[in-house]
Structures are given as structure tokens and as C-alpha cells.
């Protein structure tokens, strides 16, 4: 009997004591200061300055110290960076960078491109606000194709490379561009090239691949950039 009563009564007691505890904790939080930071307009300092220095925000390239080595382009696992280096006959075959584009829409802010840079030209900044109406406008262009910049020649024995204040360049670019700027008009697509033929030795693939695959051009596929393995 007493056992049965205990089984009946014990939960009631536990319910009261535990609810008592819980209520007192929630009340104590009512009396404490909330931890929320009210982004973006009610912070004591701008959110950008509250971020730690290692924050991986928008990539920034200081063209003045870019050696055009393309190490960052190779390091990027998803081909977000496109660099084109040419020899400019007008400048005595000086190597110039005609294209240095970073597609921030696709960038995953992993930081792998920063690590191999020999001069610290490409860096993550603490900039992170850059909404654009058109996704094409999220490509940040660090080289002007009409006025390509010459590559930086590392002075012998230099271990320090003067760099513009981190973030100033990308911020200038972001502020210069209106958020609803018109998107660049791309050229009409080139006539589609036939997809590389499926190796004939493997009949299973031909059976599984639908006919649409044959005509699709793989050249602009976003993640896969290399040729299929034999």
C-alpha cells in the first residue's frame, strides 16, 4: 500500500519541486540583461569592427603586390577565381594581369586561396555586407581588362610587402557599386560543342545516361572542372 502510494505521490512532489526550480531560473533570466546584439543599427561599434581579425569575409586583392602567380586560382577547389596573365608588347613584354575576377556568389570563404599567396595580396577581409539585386554583379573585378596591371616583382630578400589597409579596397568597390546596378549583358552562348563521347568500353554508362546528356555542354559546369577520367 505504502509502495503504491509512494509511486503515486512521488511524481507530484517531483513535479512541484522541479517546476519551482525551473520557474525561478526563467525569472532570474527575466532580471538579467539579454545577450542579443541588435544587428545592424543598434550596436555600439559597427559590426565589422566587432569581428575578429581572422574573420573570413570578402576576398580582397591588392593589385600593387600581386605577382600574377595564379597560386590562388589553383588552390580554389571550386574555381571561384579567374586570372589571366598576358605579356604586353606595348610595355616591353611586361607580364600584365588582364583578368582577376572573384565570384563572391560562389565563394565559400574557406581561405585556401589566401594560404599559398606569396605576398599576401589576396586576403579575407572583415567585409560581409554586399547584397546585390543581380547575382552577376557579385563578381568582383580586380583587374581592368582595358588597363591591365603589371605583375609585382618581389624585391630580393623582401619579407614584407606594403599593402593597402585591409578591407579598404573591397569596401571601396562595394560602396562604388549600387546595390541595384544593372547586370552586365553577357554575349550569346557559343554554339554547343558535343560532349566527349562516353567510353565505348563501358556499356552500362551508355544505358544509364539519358539522351539529353549527349547534347549538354559540360564547359560551364559549376563544380566539375577537369576532364573525365579514363
Amino acid at each position, binding site marked *: 500500500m505504502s509502495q503504491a502510494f509512494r509511486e503515486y505521490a512521488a511524481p507530484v512532489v517531483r513535479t512541484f519541486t522541479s517546476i519551482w526550480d525551473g520557474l525561478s531560473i526563467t525569472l532570474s533570466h527575466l532580471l538579467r540583461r539579454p545577450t542579443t546584439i541588435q544587428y545592424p543599427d543598434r550596436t555600439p561599434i559597427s559590426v565589422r569592427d566587432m569581428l575578429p581579425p581572422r574573420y573570413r569575409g570578402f576576398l580582397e586583392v591588392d593589385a600593387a603586390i600581386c605577382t600574377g602567380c595564379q597560386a590562388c586560382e589553383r588552390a580554389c577547389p571550386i574555381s571561384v577565381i579567374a586570372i589571366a596573365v598576358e605579356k604586353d608588347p606595348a610595355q616591353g613584354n611586361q607580364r600584365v594581369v588582364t583578368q582577376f575576377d572573384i565570384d563572391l556568389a560562389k565563394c565559400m570563404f574557406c581561405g585556401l586561396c589566401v594560404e599559398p599567396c606569396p605576398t599576401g595580396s589576396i586576403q579575407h577581409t572583415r567585409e560581409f555586407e554586399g547584397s546585390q539585386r543581380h547575382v552577376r554583379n557579385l563578381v568582383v573585378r580586380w583587374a581592368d581588362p582595358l588597363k591591365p596591371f603589371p605583375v609585382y616583382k618581389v624585391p630580393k630578400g623582401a619579407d614584407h610587402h606594403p599593402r593597402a589597409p585591409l578591407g579598404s579596397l573591397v569596401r571601396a568597390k562595394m560602396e562604388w557599386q549600387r546595390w541595384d546596378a544593372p547586370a552586365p549583358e553577357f554575349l550569346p552562348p557559343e554554339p554547343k560543342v558535343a560532349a566527349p563521347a562516353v567510353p565505348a568500353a563501358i556499356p552500362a*554508362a551508355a544505358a544509364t545516361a539519358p539522351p539529353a546528356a549527349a547534347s549538354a555542354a559540360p564547359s*560551364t559546369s559549376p563544380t566539375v572542372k577537369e576532364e573525365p577520367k579514363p
Partner: protein
Amino acid sequence: MTPQEIQTRLRGRFGEAVGPMADTRRDPFFTVGKGALLEVAAFLRDEPDLAMDALEDETALDWPQRNVLEVVLHLFSFTHRHGVTVKVEVDRAAPSLPTLTGVWRAAEWFEREVYDLFGVSFEGHPDLRRILLPDDWEGHPLRKDYREAGGWHGISNERENPLVELRRLDQKRRQENLP
């Protein structure tokens, strides 16, 4: 027991159905004949000094050159804290294998995944259907010869690459700019 000892033990019991230890400088493994797989699995699980009570992982490897699919089993014993890697080779054209669901329940989902991504069909599996991909997906993506179909039900998986497009645009503009 080390994998080598386990292999020796199995060899003593099943003879030629159990292959030799692979010559590798990394993690060792050995192969088991497809016909003996179920018996070997039950033996591995039930023998007290082996007691492989857990199927840690089951996956597959595609070797188009050898024209085989290897189904890889990673076994582990919580009793003895030892493990072993067992591989079974199946024909690439019509891959099939008896299911291990009856031995380790974890095999149910692992085998569904192998079926989904490699196309190995497991005989006797209670619920063999695609697990990660849609039911009407065509092909088995982790096979080396898999080609993307370019979309699914009219949903394209391609998008313009602005970097490429910008480069084309640049080239045109520079040509126009040239005298």
C-alpha cells in the same frame, strides 16, 4: 586479433574462398568469395574469439579496368576491440550479392546506399530501393563511368559561369578597343 590472424583463422575454416592478405602498406584487407560471404559473415559474428558484432561500414569501390565492383565491409568487435576489412568482388555488368541484413541490421541502410550509388543489388534485402537519390534517378553516380544527365525532370543543374562569360566579354571589348 590482428587482421592477419583473423584471415588465417578464416582460411583454415573456409579454405580458398578467403583470399590472401592484400599487399598494401596502408590498412590491410582480404577478399572473400561471393558464394561464401554469408557463411563467412555469420562465422565472423558468431565465433566467440572473433565476435564481430558490428558492421561498421559497408560500401563499394568501382574498378572499371578490372571490370569489378568491390563491396567493402568494415567489421568491428566490441567484445575484443578488433576489426577487419573484408572485400567481396562482384561482376560490374550484373552486380549482385546476398544481403547481410540477417547478420548485421546496420547492413540494411548501408546496402541500400550501395545499391543506390553503385547499383549492386542485394538478394534477399527486405527493402531494397534508392535511399539518397530520387526513386526515378537514372544511373549510379559513384560508378566511375557515370555521366551527369544535365538535370532532373527539367530542373537544370547547370548555370552560367560569370567568370567565363566575363572573359569572353573582355576579349570582345579589347578587340573593339584595338585600333
